[in-house]
């Protein structure tokens, strides 16, 4: 699960990768601004995953750099200015890849964890 294969620090890469996947997943249903992405992830995870702005915004930049999302200024329903992020076709492909890897990983971890269970 390496997005930055040249970086030595695999631990952060794992975290980065997971957050990236969550963001892509959130954007699947349509463009959203940063604050809404954070709130969505939080709500969807029943408040378990709290994405800090300090991680969220660098992650969005990372995705934009890769070309998986694009951004555009727009207005919210409450008529406030906000920057909206939209999934690109490449982003969609990446999401599918991430998803299948994630499923594999969860299944693998699950097998390991249940191995010596009575």
């Amino acid at each position, binding site marked *: 699960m390496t997005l930055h294969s040249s970086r030595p620090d695999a631990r952060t890469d794992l975290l980065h990768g997971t957050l990236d996947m969550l963001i892509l997943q959130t954007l699947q249903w349509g463009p959203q*601004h940063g*604050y809404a992405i954070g709130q969505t992830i939080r709500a969807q995870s029943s408040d378990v995953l709290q994405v*800090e*702005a300090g991680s969220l915004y*660098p992650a*969005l930049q990372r995705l934009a750099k890769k070309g998986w999302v694009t951004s555009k200024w727009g207005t919210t329903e409450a008529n406030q*200015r906000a920057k909206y992020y939209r999934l690109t076709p490449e982003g969609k492909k990446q999401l599918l890849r991430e998803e299948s890897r994630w499923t594999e990983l969860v299944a693998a971890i699950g097998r390991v964890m249940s191995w010596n269970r009575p």
Partner: protein
Amino acid sequence: MFDKADFDDEIRAHLKIAAAERVADGASPKDAELDSLKEFGNVALTGEAARRVWVPNWLESVFDFVSDIRYSARVLAKSPVFSLTVIAVLTLGIGVNAAVFTLLKSMALNPLSGIGDSSQLSIIVNETDKGRKAGLSYRDYQFVRDHDQSFSGLAASGLLAANFGRGKNAKPIYAELVSGNYFQVLGVRAELGRTILPSDEVAPGRHPYAVLNDGFWRRDFGADPNIVGKTIEINNFKLTIVGVADPSFHGMIVGYDDEAFIPVMMAAQMGANVGSLQSGASTDVLADRGAGILDVFGFLRPGVTAPTASAQLKTLSATLMQEAGISETKQQLTLLRIWESPYGGQTFLLPALVVLAVMGLFVLTIACANIAGLVLVRGMSRRGELAVRLALGASRSRVVRLLLLENLVLAIPGAILGMLLAARAIPFLTSYAQTMAAPQRLFFNIQIDRLVIAFAAAVATASALVFGFVPALRSSRIDLVTAINEDSSPRGAARGRLRSGLVIAQVAVSLLLLVGAGLVTRSLDAARHAYPGFDPNHVTAIDIDLRANGYTPARGRVFYRQLLDAVKADPGVESATLASTMPLNLTGVREQRVEVDGYTPRKNEDLGFESATVGPDYFSTLRIPLKAGRGFEDRDDETAAPVAVVNTTFAQKFYAGADNAIGKRIRVGTGGWRTIVGVAADIKYSQINEPPRPYVYQPLFQAYRWSMTLHARGSGPTNAMVEQEQAHIATLDSDLPIIHARALRDTLPGATVILEFMSAFLFVFGASGMALAGMGIYGLVAYTVKQRTREIGIRMALGATTVAVIREFLGRGVRLGAIGVGVGVAGALAISRLLASVLFGVSATDAISFTRAVAIVLGGVVLATIAPAWRASRTNPLTALRHQ
């Protein structure tokens, strides 16, 4: 790309939305704003993290590095005394070495300016089996040039000490006789007009052209833009100026500023001759295989190595010998690097520079040991900080890296300042050399160039590693518990061992330096007081050159006779004579082949000796004793039987004694047989520290020369005599230029100038080395004392006396000093062979120099130890104990 303004905008929008949501949930606008800001976290950090996403990885490591450097600089700025001390010590250490290196560069590594890379130049000389190197004759050069396959081109040139202009305004210059391809081979362009071209090397005497050097053109022709086509008179011969060479070019001869370049075809017209026998323009100097007037050089073809070229040259050499029908004398064409060339300033300066380079490295060693001490002590006081870093998870290598980086941050200003120091000091030295050489001009390639900068950078980096590495490693191996508990009790003998090692190293190396300085100073002293074999007092030395006024040999002889008669008629003058070379002239003169009647040279024996042409009464005027026979007299003129005088060493070598030499016959160069009529005692011909060597004298009126020095001896003031003689010359020929006029005594410093130069350098080296070592030892002892304050307090509380405490510290200091002295003496003995090459009148193991150096060093150690020890003894036991 990352757009900071846009990003900030986005964050603001985020905060607004978050706040609005909170307000909608019922919070007050103010609370909502604060809460959303709190929830967001660090805005600046987020911006920074977002920005860094866009930074490529390599750039990021550069940023890391820069931030490390910034951190280092901040840390160092916090301890300015430490930092400035280190920079100052390094400046001295690097400055000394950069200066010596620059000199070494200007003499050997890249001595020529205006040529791509003069260190890549290869020189071809004729070398006898005895190792005597001589130039090639023009015919040999032609042969080698036409048959060689290893060079991309072979050019040739010969130094010509010439007169520029005519009559009273004539001025001595250095010029070069050059082959047609000279400028092409060296890759030097003309700044104005053209260079000398291959078409200028067709027929002897038919190419009366000259190319000027830029400085000459500016100084003597006011940078005349229309100079091309004008004529210049050199050695009484008119040459047409065809161009001005590139401003950076100063000719091919190391240390000389060659002001004009003239086709070698004009050798005869320019009066190039081989020794003293040529009288006037001989047309066959170019055809004479014995006239080795040319230095031959070129760049090797790409892909050709020096050994390959040497091998090819060997084959070529054999063919050449066969063709020339030479079989009895073994001569070999040899490939040399530029610093091995037999011509130029490096021939007599290089040994001194090598010694200085080694000594300079010693100064640097002390500087490094000194700084290592400082870094070590500082590392101890920084143990807390480092321990925290390690505790927070910084890896050991990261801490070591940071510490090394700190050293590098200090080394770089040290290197720059050191280079500036060198750049300031060197012109001072060369201008001194120029005053000694005036009116002829010298040139040294002393610019700070890439080579010098690379050297300084390498030295700085190496020293940063040396003085930083061991202490850094040690600092990183901190025992966390003790460090954090701030327990400063002396722990482990290892740290003490390193400190002791540093003290010993500094003592040892400063001893080496002091021994070197002492030996050279004593040499200089001995050289100044040594009797050179002649009496230089109350004798004049006035140089004239008849070529400048176009004298024929016949008219010249008349002039010489009239001059001697006029001078001798002066009431104050006891005797007067003329000589072609002055004794103790530093560089020596070109050797000539000498044939000895009845002596069959052993196979491979090389009979080349220096010789001088001297007038009647030469030996009595200079008070050189005659061991047998007589000196030259008025009767030894052009009509009389040819005679010669040899020196004692010559007589000893060939005739086993002075008395046996009288009546024997010799031939000098291509001249006829001469009968030896006298044997003169040996004198010092070039340098005061030269070994005895065979020497031959020929009488002036049988071996005419146009450039002579007038010597007159008289008991009156020598300066008055000098003026009187100048007046005589003016009376005889008011247009004749007088090149130098001074007392012979005043020319002698030239013979000791190298020793003087070295002793000045080594004095600075020795003094700075000793000062550094003293400071270093003081610092280390003071630190030890500080560390042991508590222990001393306890001991004093238990009744130890002041004297006992002082004695203990002093004893330890002196013990380390003694070990250092032992190591230093061993080192000095080990390098005595190196020193022996430059010493005079003292052995390299001279007891006085050694004793003095040991005394100074031990004195320094005691001084550096006693002050902190005394302070330790004043420790108030109560204060010391209350410390914790």
